């Protein structure tokens, strides 16, 4: 009988130990989620803007600036933000793109928002003169054996 009791005690001890380990792992996991988790998910449009201070990129992928919410609302229904943010155009170029989308891609009349969107895009996604052939850049050097 005493043997059985000792075994049970041992089992109970092991269980307690396991529970403690699991609890620690869970807490560590939650802490990791808070600090190392998907940071782009943790701020909400219209939240305290100080939350976005560490980056000028909105969690949507757009540069944080006046008009960004209007851009998100009108430009990301059909396509991802990347289709905008990869591109660089003059105000005239962005307007031509909007007109093309209205004529052939079912984009709606933007009304008063058109000026807001155009100003935002022309300012934040303006072309740069890269010459006739840009220099090689962002080279990751490595030793080749």
């Amino acid at each position: 009988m005493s043997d059985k009791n000792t075994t049970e005690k041992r089992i109970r001890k092991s269980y307690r130990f396991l529970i403690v380990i699991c609890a620690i792992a869970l807490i560590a996991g939650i802490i990791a989620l808070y600090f190392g988790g998907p940071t782009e998910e943790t701020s909400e449009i219209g939240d305290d803007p100080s939350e976005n201070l560490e980056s000028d990129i909105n969690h949507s992928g757009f540069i944080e600036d006046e008009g960004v919410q209007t851009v998100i609302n009108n430009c990301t229904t059909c396509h991802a933000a990347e289709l905008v943010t990869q591109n660089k155009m003059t105000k005239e170029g962005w307007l031509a793109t909007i007109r093309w989308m209205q004529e052939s891609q079912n984009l709606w009349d933007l009304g008063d928002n058109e000026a807001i969107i155009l100003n935002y895009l022309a300012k934040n996604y303006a072309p740069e003169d890269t010459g006739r052939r840009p220099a090689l850049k962002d080279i990751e050097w490595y030793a080749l054996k």
Partner: protein
Amino acid sequence: MNFKRRNFLKKATLGSLATVIGADIVYGELMPKNYKPLALQDPDPFKLFHKDADMTVLNSKPWNIEAKAHLLDDKVTPNKFMFIRNNGLIPENIDAESWTLTFDGESVKNTKTYTLAELKSKFKQYSYQLTLECGGNGRSEFNPPAKGNQWTIGAVSCATWTGVRLKDVLADVGIKDDAKYIGYHAADVHLSRDPEKEPISRGAPIAKAMQEETLLAFEMNGEAIPLAHGFPLRLIAGGWPASVSGKWLKRISIRNIIHDGAKMGGSSYRVPCKPVAPGEKVKDEDMCIIESMPVKSLITYPKTGAILSEGQKLNIRGHAWAGELEVSKMEYSIDFGSTWHLCTLEKPVNRLAWQHFAAAIEFPQKGYYEVWARATDSQGKSQPMLLPGWNPKGYLNNASHRIAIKIA
């Protein structure tokens, strides 16, 4: 990774999340505010499409993903390194068993429909290695910048495609003497989800359709075509802009005019008929449809950025292709194009397949070098060292590929 997840759960409550996931979220109250449970996050494109994690996502809606030069080292491109260029949304609920292909149009004798099984059993099957390059590959270098996905160098592949010859099927269908062009129609969905709109409906002149290598393909590299690349049936027209090779193929119209489907007009896959100054406005009627892609090459080994020790020889290798033509000469330069040296160059395994080159390079002293690659086609045209002729949508950039090397 450029890929950013869309945030559609801002106002969702734990209860509604549980409904969507189909289970209660244990410890849901401990979940950080706005944290999106894994079950509801957008799918990982690398897992979804079986792509290598080093591939670059340019756009997540529609999906556009490209390779890097060193990822394209295989002689036959495996799926994991093959670029994805989508104009619309990938069709859902594809049933290969009930899949059909219909031939119609002004110049078809009688409208005819084949099941996929009939195509496979009724016609002889052929396999070819075929180079498919996006017309906009290299767009990112144009100045002034050109609108669209900013492809660098990785929107090219050469896989083995298996299918039946379109010419054999057209002979069975019966086409009229005035047939001028074929235009494809596919199952993909327009970004606006408007069922009346096609994301893309391009094609090729009858002469291209009648080439032996132009296939109605159902296999890529010996397996069913992956979903993102056109499962279960794809038109394959090697050497031409890859947009001619329509995916998720449902219908082919035999036209007595140049096909006028989506992305056949305006500045889509068209370039100025006569050269223009960078940034110049070009009228619609002065634009010509791109046919054969130009001569081009890629150094696929080593990866750019290699540091060698003095006296160490560098063995480079890569692929070269020339649209409808063959590559007749391959050269490299380590002095910014002042002098050029021949590479060994293999013949293509079949017409329209890319060719493999190699060279052993010795560097004269320590320092920074760039290895430049230059292919010449069978008509004597070579790759330019600077950007070729500017065009409104930034197509056909076949400027020499360059890799950086340091001798330390």
